[in-house]
């Protein structure tokens, strides 16, 4: 099978899917049910069946930062009115989101905007691999929904004090931003309103466990996100 090498180090096949040996972050993989209650697959199945008969204009997909957003007031105030669906799953890395999208979650809907927020859980992967995973997802979305615009959200800093994951996430953001610059159907939004304080710390009032956002922090980051989605929807109007 012919493959193309992308500048992220990712290999593409003619079907658009990453070749297996190249990048684990870009190889569609379901989450293994280690715990024993099948929750990940339950969520995936629910998303697939939820999507039948619904006509969302906006689809949010990603990890717990997407999933938890749905549980707070900000979702009802800012995103429900935009007819948004939420396909976030806590713990998901890029390869898990990729698997979900390849296996049914995009098959019954045609949102105009897909908001993608994933990558912070890709432990053990390099920034290049994570970028490759995000690009693979963008590619699948474009194949399945050729008229949709994908809005990729930048990874947030994490941890109370400076640490390697902050650097990793910042590198991913720089790589992704560069990759999507030339694509008309994708744009990038930096979601960090300045969470890192002058002493290098992150406040627990913003991230209660130095990873997940408090309701107040969600309010801060969602305003610009809401504006950007609205303007993309306006541009999309036939």
């Amino acid at each position: 099978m012919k493959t193309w090498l992308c500048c992220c180090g990712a290999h593409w096949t003619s079907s658009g899917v990453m070749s297996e040996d190249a990048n684990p972050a870009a190889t569609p993989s379901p989450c293994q049910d280690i715990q024993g209650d099948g929750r990940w697959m339950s969520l995936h199945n629910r998303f697939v069946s939820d999507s039948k008969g619904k006509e969302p204009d906006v689809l949010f997909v990603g990890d717990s930062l997407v999933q938890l957003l749905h549980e707070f007031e900000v979702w009802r105030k800012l995103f429900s009115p935009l007819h948004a669906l939420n396909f976030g799953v806590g713990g998901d890395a890029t390869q898990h989101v990729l698997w979900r999208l390849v296996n049914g979650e995009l098959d019954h809907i045609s949102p105009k905007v897909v908001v993608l927020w994933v990558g912070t859980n890709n432990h053990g992967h390099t920034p290049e691999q994570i970028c490759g995973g995000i690009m693979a997802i963008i590619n699948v979305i474009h194949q399945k929904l050729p008229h949709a615009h994908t809005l990729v959200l930048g990874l947030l800093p994490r941890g109370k004090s400076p640490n390697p994951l902050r650097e990793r996430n910042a590198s991913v953001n720089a790589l992704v931003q560069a990759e999507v610059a030339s694509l008309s159907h994708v744009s990038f939004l930096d979601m960090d309103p300045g969470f890192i304080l002058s002493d290098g710390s992150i406040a627990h009032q913003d991230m209660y466990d130095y990873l997940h956002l408090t309701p107040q922090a969600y309010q801060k980051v969602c305003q610009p996100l809401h504006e950007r989605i609205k303007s993309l929807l306006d541009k999309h109007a036939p």
Partner: protein
Amino acid sequence: MSAEENPAAEPAPVIDVQGDGRWMSQECKDAEPDVLFVGDSMVQLMQQYEVWREVFSPLHALNFGIGGDTTCNVLWRLQNGELENIRPRVVVLWVGTNNHEHTADQVAGGILAIAQLVLSRLPRSKIIVLGLLPRGEFPNPLREKNAAVNNLLRASLPQLGPVQFIDVGGSFVHSDGAISSRDMFDFLHLTASAYRTISTTLHELLLQMLEEMPQERRASLV
């Protein structure tokens, strides 16, 4: 079951495999709580919803929940500083659903060990232990395990003294055996409305316990 025999009663900090040191960073915040909540994400997430501000903050509650914690992690935290400098009158303990490596017997033993530790450090306090909730969309082994833990706790906790066990999971499993995502958005963690449901029972019990206990005179006020 002693700590040597029960791995679930072996205090252990969380090892920072991800690389950002978040577990160790989550520290003591407020001054003089009357109620201390301690446990895993079931406790931690509660503080992010309105129900905390409306129902539990007025009781001067402090939240020491950390997502992912097992009985071992909670035991370690309580032995290593989290009970220093505070004298809550009631401790609410909710942990055990993350003890994947342990049997129901071991998990119950770990919870008992935590209760014993709290009583030894805070001899005048009372404890409320919340039962483990059912989890997963459909019947599965973890539901059986959590139910088994609850049965063991129901039998053994009263022997410790001022410890009450309450099971708030009754309403979540429907007649077809399914749990709704309206109650548990990921079939494990509670939604805002589910927290409201369980908070009523918990709040009533807390009020009752606090009323029964004479308020300690704070030395600093004299």
